[in-house]
């Protein structure tokens, strides 16, 4: 892994929130404050120029992780190295520099744009905030960026209010606002989940093209594995605040090595009526991250659970080339057991 240039490296990152207590409990200061461990010891490495996918069910902590990576949440513990500088310890000027380098594309194109701003002003605002360029330079840059994201002719779109635009166009405005500062790293949190299918593909194409042309490194957060398989070089699967499996996108989807990944893949519906998927039924839903089970966090829902799973939290095991999974089925002690959790998904092409 060392042969690749790292763009963002995360070490033992934690983000805990304290749950709200009732007023009475607080006044009498009784009871311990409950802690939601939204991100709880995450390690990964996003390489320069790659598209890295982060998947998991709602409540697994993927959006919190995305926001923590952008320093929008203060981390509870751990380090985030961006271009080899630890951003969790940065202050003042350094932090401002990071904020132009890393940008967020939001999920909801309808509510994430201030309706009182014209497209031009909305895209220009980050330049004003960071006091970049002269007035004319800013105007030119905004127009160029609008063109680049496919809002052409830029002059016509610039004077529109967001309410006059379609969902796809609004999402492009959001992308333009993220790009105008010429970032090198993007976090795209479910960038197309609110768009119609026929428009979705065009926004994905745009993101792919920007990645090629600008050499952007992108973190895609989505629950849609079909989409991540299509868009990403590598995928990490998150469960209850931890990464349970990481690997090259196609390899991970076609041959998952963690029972949770396997279940996620097998739950994803397939269009092609000729491909029969092997169904793995998981019971229940993601449990509340306040009272975590001891041992493996997935054990209560795992179809392959064994007695040892409850003993201690499993570490990450190397399971294939560049692929790691957090499951003791891959421990040497279980070498005789059936570890071939993979092959849930038949492939056809």
């Amino acid at each position: 892994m060392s042969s690749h240039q790292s763009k963002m490296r995360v070490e033992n990152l934690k983000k805990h929130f304290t749950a709200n207590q009732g007023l009475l409990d607080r006044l009498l200061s009784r009871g311990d404050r409950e802690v939601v461990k939204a991100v709880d010891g995450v390690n990964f490495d996003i390489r320069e120029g790659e598209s890295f996918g982060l998947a998991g069910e709602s409540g697994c902590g993927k959006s919190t992780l995305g926001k923590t990576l952008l320093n929008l949440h203060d981390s509870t513990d751990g380090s985030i190295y961006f271009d080899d500088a630890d951003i969790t310890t940065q202050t003042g000027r350094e932090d401002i520099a990071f904020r132009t380098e890393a940008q967020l594309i939001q999920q909801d194109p309808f509510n994430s744009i201030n309706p009182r701003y014209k497209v031009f002003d909305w895209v220009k605002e980050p330049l004003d905030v960071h006091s970049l360029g002269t007035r004319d330079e800013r105007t030119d840059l905004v127009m160029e960026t609008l063109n680049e994201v496919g809002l052409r002719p830029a002059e016509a779109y610039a004077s529109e209010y967001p309410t006059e635009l379609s969902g796809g166009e609004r999402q492009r405005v959001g992308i333009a606002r993220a790009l105008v500062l010429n970032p090198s790293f993007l976090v795209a949190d479910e960038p197309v989940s609110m768009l119609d299918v026929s428009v979705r593909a065009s926004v994905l194409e745009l993101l792919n093209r920007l990645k090629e042309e600008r050499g952007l490194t992108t973190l895609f957060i989505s629950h849609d594995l079909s989409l991540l398989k299509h868009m990403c070089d590598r995928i990490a699967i998150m469960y209850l605040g931890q990464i349970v499996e990481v690997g090259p996108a196609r390899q991970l989807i076609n041959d998952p090595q963690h029972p949770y990944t396997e279940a996620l893949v097998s739950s994803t519906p397939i269009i092609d009526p000729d491909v029969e998927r092997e169904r793995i039924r998981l019971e229940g839903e993601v449990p509340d991250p306040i009272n975590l089970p001891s041992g493996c966090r997935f054990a209560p829902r795992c179809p392959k659970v064994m007695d040892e799973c409850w003993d201690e939290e499993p570490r990450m095991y190397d399971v294939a080339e560049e692929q790691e999974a957090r499951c003791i089925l891959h421990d040497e002690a279980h070498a005789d057991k059936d570890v071939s959790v993979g092959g849930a998904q038949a492939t056809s092409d």
Partner: protein
Amino acid sequence: MLNIENLHAHYHTDEGTDVHAVDGVDLEVGSNETLGLVGESGCGKTTLAKALIRLLPTNGEIVDGSVNFKETDLTELSDEELRKQIRWTEISMIPQNAMNSLDPVHTVGAQIVQAIRTHEDCSKEEAWNRTRELFEELGLDENRVKDYPHQFSGGMAQRAAIALALCLEPALILADEPTTALDVVVQDQILTMVSELQDEIDSSMIMITHDMSVVSETCDKIAVMYGGNVAEYADSETIIKNPRHPYTLGMRNAFPDISKDTQELISIPGSPPDLIEPEEGCKFAPRCPFAQDECREVTPEPEEFEEGHVVRCHRADEVEYLQEEASKRETWAEMKDDQGDLISATDGGTDE
């Protein structure tokens, strides 16, 4: 069992114009059959479902056509008759957002009991017992019948909404994006369970969704809607593997499939029509790479090709040419140029 003929439903606007949300729909649903209604937002799929049980908002109106359900024309019934005889007992709806459709000030169980007792003559105790059974069948803990909706997770609330829709064993279930808000694991659990229950109580279902993979797996027949019309209607396998309408072909290109290793996603340029006082001509023509003069001037009528495969397209007989050309990126990219002001839908960037 359900036969919709030439249904037109309009929304009146403040400007005095009409939005032709459902614009001449013909559809059939057989007993114990699941029909998938797919299309983008604004194509009229939800309006169609609401028009069937006449739950349109106050500015909406059925202006023409008939809805024949078990030999009764629902459009002829009075509101009173429809409410007493049809809604819930015969046709019920599973809403998209369960959390908002449950009453926050009553327990979930009480809402189901109320529904049962409003329509059927049964004792309180019997109704509660049935509610508990339903909870069990839907994978909910029966001890939670007396919980309020806010104590449920999204998945549980959706199950409760399904319990509410199925409690009177209706003959037809209208499921409006029943799992869109849920994660795949829960979606899979719920879809499997709904189809099992559907078999058990022997009802038909209309499943409204924009997700091609969901309809492909759960539905017997699929109707692809565009601009208030059914663009193409056939059994699921035909729609997925052998579609004739350029819109269906385009939708297939745009949808990522997890079972494919390499797939070029191609979008359909432009956006859906607004349906305000539509003009003559095919509604898909402005976005269709195969549109000819005829398409822009004459509205295509539904035409049956193979048995049960109905397509509304002037060029549907050129199926091989359409399928061949529609799979190419250039086809959809080139047409954008003569549209000028469209956002560049298909420039650059491939999967590989």
